[in-house]
Structure formats: structure tokens, C-alpha cells
């Protein structure tokens, strides 16, 4: 038994060198395998989630993402929706877009972004303001995140 344990120990120790070689030489291969096997992605809380709707406006387009309420287990009661405009060269000074989060008309609001000042506002159909989380100036255009409460019309 002692001999067997010693042999296994030595085998594992030799294998450590092989593991190091495989870790670096096969890094790209294993990375791809790992991603395809786990289907892992970056959290929509970082990326803004999938684009749900694209509106063409001639020189530029608006991309409205799906509402993001993703939490550790299930969904959270608070979230956000991200709206992108691109390309940067085709954008007018003031951008305005009607947004229906998740396609729900009762949740609709209008987001307005002044690209000169970088200020954004969001207002519902009766003119009440919605909290704007962040305004981002991207290389490709602009993005705005508006905070949402789940199941609650603005």
C-alpha cells in the first residue's frame, strides 16, 4: 500500500509538468472548449443584455436592449433597460426614442439624450421623470441606461 501511494505520488508529480505544458500550450484550445461546454457569458448587468429591437433612422439606428432584472436566483425587483445609438458620425445633436420595455405598451417611456452635453432624461406618457442610471459615450456612439422597477409602470 505504501509503495502504491508512493508511486501515485511520483506519477502525480511528473504529471504536474505535463499539466503546466498543457495549461499554456493548450490554453486557447481549452478556453474554447470551456466556453462551448459551459455556455458561459458575461452578465447582462455588465453588457446591457441582448438587443430586443432595432429602429432605423436613416443616418443612425437605435438599439433597445431587453429589460435586465437578472439576479443570482431568478429576477430582481429593480433593473434597467439600455438604449444604444450608433454610428457616432450619423447622430443628430439631440436623440429621442420611445421605448417599450419588453414590448409592454403600459411601461412605455421616452428617452431623450443631448449628445452635446451628455445629459439624458426619461419621461413616461404623463411626463413624470424616470431615473437615468448612466450615460455612456462609446467609440461607436452613445448608450443610456434607465432604471426600472419590475411590474411597475412608470
Amino acid at each position, binding site marked *: 500500500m505504501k509503495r502504491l501511494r508512493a508511486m501515485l505520488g511520483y506519477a502525480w508529480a511528473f504529471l504536474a509538468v505535463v499539466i503546466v505544458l498543457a495549461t499554456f500550450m493548450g490554453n486557447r484550445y481549452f478556453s474554447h472548449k470551456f466556453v462551448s461546454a459551459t455556455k458561459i457569458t458575461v452578465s447582462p448587468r455588465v453588457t446591457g443584455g441582448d438587443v430586443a429591437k432595432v429602429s432605423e433612422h436613416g443616418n443612425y439606428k437605435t438599439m433597445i436592449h431587453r429589460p435586465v432584472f437578472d*439576479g*443570482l*436566483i*431568478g429576477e*430582481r*425587483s*429593480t433593473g434597467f433597460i439600455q438604449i444604444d445609438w450608433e454610428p457616432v458620425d450619423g447622430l443628430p445633436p439631440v436623440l429621442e426614442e420611445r421605448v417599450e420595455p419588453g414590448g409592454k405598451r403600459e411601461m412605455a417611456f421616452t428617452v431623450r439624450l443631448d449628445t452635446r452635453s451628455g445629459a439624458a432624461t426619461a419621461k413616461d406618457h404623463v411626463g413624470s421623470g424616470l431615473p437615468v442610471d448612466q450615460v455612456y459615450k462609446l467609440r461607436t456612439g452613445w448608450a443610456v441606461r434607465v432604471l426600472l422597477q419590475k411590474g411597475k409602470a412608470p
Partner: protein
Amino acid sequence: MEGFLLGVSNGVICVAYCTPVLVPCLLAGGGGLSRSTAVTLRFLGGRLLGYLLFGVVAWAIGRPLLQAAGYRELITGSVYMVLSVMLVLFGFFNDSHSCSAPAVTSLVLKPLGRIRLSALVPEAAGLATGLNLCPPFLLALAASVEKGSLSSSLFFFLMFFIGTALFFIPAPFLGLLKTVPAFRTVGKLAAGLIGLYYFYSGLIMFVGGIKSV
């Protein structure tokens, strides 16, 4: 029933908010499963007390004051800061495995008699997390202020508590880890670190509240 369903549907979020406080409490104390269960129950008791207090507040003061800009932040910020000072002292400056509450509050509470505050950390933590204005709690608050009477407001919060408490059932088993002395030390230090975080949160809320009032 509305409160219970709200509690069940939001229990996971409650656990997410409360775990960083409860787990260090569980690890820092001594004893076995029964003691861990007791700590969890006392923590939940503190939460229940916090909920019922808000039930009373929701009924007595009514929606306008609680929703008035600033007051909510002032109250919660103050509670956070008191809890955090207790946790920091408990975690970093107390060699025994008991709570440091006496050092903080003895001046205030001495006249009240010889209450053993050293054992009150689970209740205090539970009370403070009970008063935590996390999203599900705000939902519950919003729903309860619409109730007409004190009894219905209290009942709503009681049912909300029962719904969320279901998710705390596995917690005592985590406490079994504390039989290893190292885990108790780690638990205490983690409680101190959580305290620092809550102090920051409380301070930010308090300052925000002062600005708004």
C-alpha cells in the same frame, strides 16, 4: 395571504441581503447545531421585530412621512451606523467570543439594569437587516401602508416575515462549521469587515438624508 406570497416570492432576495450579516454571526459563536438554530431564530426574531416596528410605523405615521424625501435615509442610515459600530468592535476589538455591545451602549443602558447585551448581536443584526430597506421590503412597505388598521398592517408584515423566513431554514447547518476554532475567528473578522461596509452605507444614506430634508 398577500404578505405571505410577497415574502415567498422575494425570500431569495432577503436571504441575499441578510446572508452577509447572518453567516459571520453563525460562525463567530460557540456550540453545535442547536445553538446555531438558536442564533438563526434570534436573528429572525430581530427581523420580525424590525418588520413589526415598520408595520406600526407604516400605520401610525403613514405614507407621507416615510415617503418624504430624506427621513427614510436618515432613519436607516442611523440604524446602519449603530449596527456597524457594534459589528466592528465585535469583529476586531474583542478577544472573547461575545458581543461588544456593552462597550458601546453601557452608558445609555446601564440605568435599565443588568441586561446581558453581550448576547444581543443576533437580535441586533436581525433587527437592523429587518429595517433594511431592500427592494422586497420596500414593496412590502408600500403594500402595507395601504392597509387601514394597525392590526392589518402588522398582520401583513407578519405574513411577509413568515414567507421570507422559509428561506432561512438551511442557515443553522452553516453554523456547524464554527466548531473548528479557526472558523470562529474568521467569522468574527468577517463580521467586523461587514461592519465597515455597513458603516459606509449608513454614512452615505445619512448624508443623503440630511441633504434631502
